[in-house]
């Protein structure tokens, strides 16, 4: 956390250094991906063009990309909150699913004016996700079980739970679904309970986008400008200092876990009501790795709230861009490869900078004996 304004430490040179490292690593990832593509006999320029076209260039595409950016950004901003408290939450995929499930349950059962149901759906998503991460939080603070393990384990449980729900009409299954495995889906959300969509420059986007941006700004502000954010940071950086000054580690930690899961659940709700995913239905495999990738977005954005939106957009582009790959005759999975390589490449700059920063620090500290 930094309340510093203009620390004046030769920031210009540092910016160049940072950008260079990122560019070099990014290029390396792209080169590797290109090599893999060539190795299988395809043309990397085709792949590149298809990705770009599919994500932003062709008309109407970037709207879809924004649709994917929204849940990724929500998962990421929630992860940043838990990271601030020095908690390791790697269960967003599960929290997202539970949030989507509770949102579906509420959305398909409540009869009330449309806008009210929309709000309830979103709230249900938040509550579902928060409950799921809350379990891990509770186990950590009351039974000392590391949350990195419980959040991970709960992902599988969530997936099975939702799968079970989709088999039973009294839970999530659409009562009118035809029999057989292929139709284990939920009821589709009625028209008036869906997020309104607007058209901007030929692209359709759900208004959740604006809500998402507002939330990100809010969280960023709260973390850096409020006493609550200050206390959360103290808890995350030094538990004993927090205790000494009467800041409750467990209270702040639980809130951070709830918030983290809540945002993942909200992402699920956005995916449901936004329309860019399974057409307003909960289906098996609904989460499509958004939880995992959202976690990656947070880490690659170096846990900075402001970097979340551009990073989420990059990852979203990869996903929507891959939709165009079929026409090039290349297996869709290559985007997983590209994505993986890019993430690995993007992991390096923060790590490199961290090491250099600490080396400088140790040197200057030693020199001031």
């Amino acid at each position, binding site marked *: 956390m930094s309340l510093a304004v203009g620390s004046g430490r030769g920031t210009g040179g540092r910016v160049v250094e940072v950008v260079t490292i990122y560019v070099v690593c990014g290029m390396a990832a792209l080169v590797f991906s290109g090599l893999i593509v060539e190795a299988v006999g395809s043309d990397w320029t085709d792949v590149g063009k298809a990705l770009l076209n599919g994500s932003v260039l062709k008309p109407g595409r970037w709207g879809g990309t924004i649709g994917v950016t929204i849940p990724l950004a929500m998962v990421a901003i929630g992860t940043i909150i838990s990271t601030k408290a020095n908690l390791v939450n790697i269960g967003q995929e599960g929290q997202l699913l539970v949030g989507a499930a509770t949102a579906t349950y509420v959305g398909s059962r409540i009869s009330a004016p449309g806008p009210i149901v929309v709000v309830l759906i979103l709230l249900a998503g938040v509550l579902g996700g928060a409950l799921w991460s809350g379990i891990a939080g509770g186990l950590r603070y009351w039974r*000392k079980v590391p949350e990195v393990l419980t959040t991970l384990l709960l992902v599988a449980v969530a997936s099975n739970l939702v799968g079970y729900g989709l088999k039973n009409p009294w839970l999530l299954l659409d009562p009118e679904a035809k029999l057989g495995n292929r139709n284990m889906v939920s009821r589709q959300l009625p028209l008036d309970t869906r997020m309104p969509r607007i058209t901007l420059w030929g692209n359709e986007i759900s208004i959740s986008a604006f809500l998402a941006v507002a939330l990100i700004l809010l969280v960023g502000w709260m973390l850096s400008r409020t006493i609550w954010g200050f206390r959360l940071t103290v808890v995350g950086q030094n538990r004993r200092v927090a205790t000494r000054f009467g800041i409750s580690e467990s209270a702040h930690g639980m809130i951070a876990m709830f918030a983290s899961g809540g945002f993942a659940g909200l992402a699920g709700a956005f995916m449901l009501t936004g329309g860019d995913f399974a057409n307003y239905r909960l289906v098996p495999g609904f989460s499509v790795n958004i939880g995992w990738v959202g976690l990656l977005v947070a880490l690659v954005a170096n846990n900075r709230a402001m970097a979340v939106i551009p990073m989420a957009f990059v990852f979203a582009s990869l996903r929507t861009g891959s939709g165009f790959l079929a026409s090039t005759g290349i297996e869709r*999975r290559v985007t*997983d*490869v590209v994505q*993986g390589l890019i993430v690995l490449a993007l992991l390096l700059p923060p790590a*490199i900078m961290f090491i250099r920063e600490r080396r400088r620090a140790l040197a200057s500290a030693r020199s001031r004996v």
Partner: protein
Amino acid sequence: MGDLFSAVLDVGTTESAYTAAARFAVVLAFAAVGEWVAERAGTLNISVEAMILAGAFGAALGYHATGSVVLGLVGGMLAGGAVASVQAQMSHRLTADQFVVGLTLNILVLGIVGFLDSEWKLSTRTASIVEVPFLVDIPLVGPALFGQPWPFYLIYLITPLFAWLVLRTRWGLEVRSVGENPQAADVSGIDVNRRRRQSIYLGGLSAGLGGGYLLLGQVGRFDPGIVAGRGFIALVAVIFGGWTLRGAIFGCLLFGSVLSFRLTLPGLGYDLNNEMLSSLPSLVTIAAMALFAHAVRQPEALARPFIRGLK
């Protein structure tokens, strides 16, 4: 509930159930034994899933190229080792976050393997069954433990080997010290990150071998979904076992049995809740941790990266 009880009874007396359980458990065991070593060194490798998958694919490649099961298994080990080396180098030399690297590797390897599988059509088969005389005739468990395709028996070699390595050799002493107090180990002249990387390589070789067994000893045909979460379950088994080798093996047996239930039960005429069974390993482990967390000692430095000069 009564249903469950009679189901367990029925399963407990069916030979094929034991065989199925053993086959499931052994893949978990190959991976778990390796990850046990890695976690004793203080690392936590979520990429075990990717290592097994790479192992399966590597074995398919190896067999396809040479027609030999042995070379296929070697290919599997090398592939698992390759994934392990990315995890090891990035997390314990380049200081990248080990969870992110692990997660990314899972996605990346799935992508690569799926991509290559759809481009190259590989043909494989299963290895022949080798029965151990006398022992295979033990009722119920005999065929399960001694009447399997020969790669199965490698687990009987690997487990004591790894136990000896970690608990009785100097290398193992250093690995354990690195997992408990890397600063002290460093001051004693031990290269902390090097030991950690080595333990991860070992894990990768073993998990890769497990993947190779999965392909050549069990399924026979490669498919990107062949691993289906076994890597995560192996991870859970290590934790469930309290970071002891015995515990990890027990966990593999337990989880292997429960998960193979899913397959044997329908054959016996039962229709239990599939999802419940699938979540059982996770739920049981969570419950065990909640109840026994205070009694179990994890390696003190588990999942905490080591950089000299930083606490």
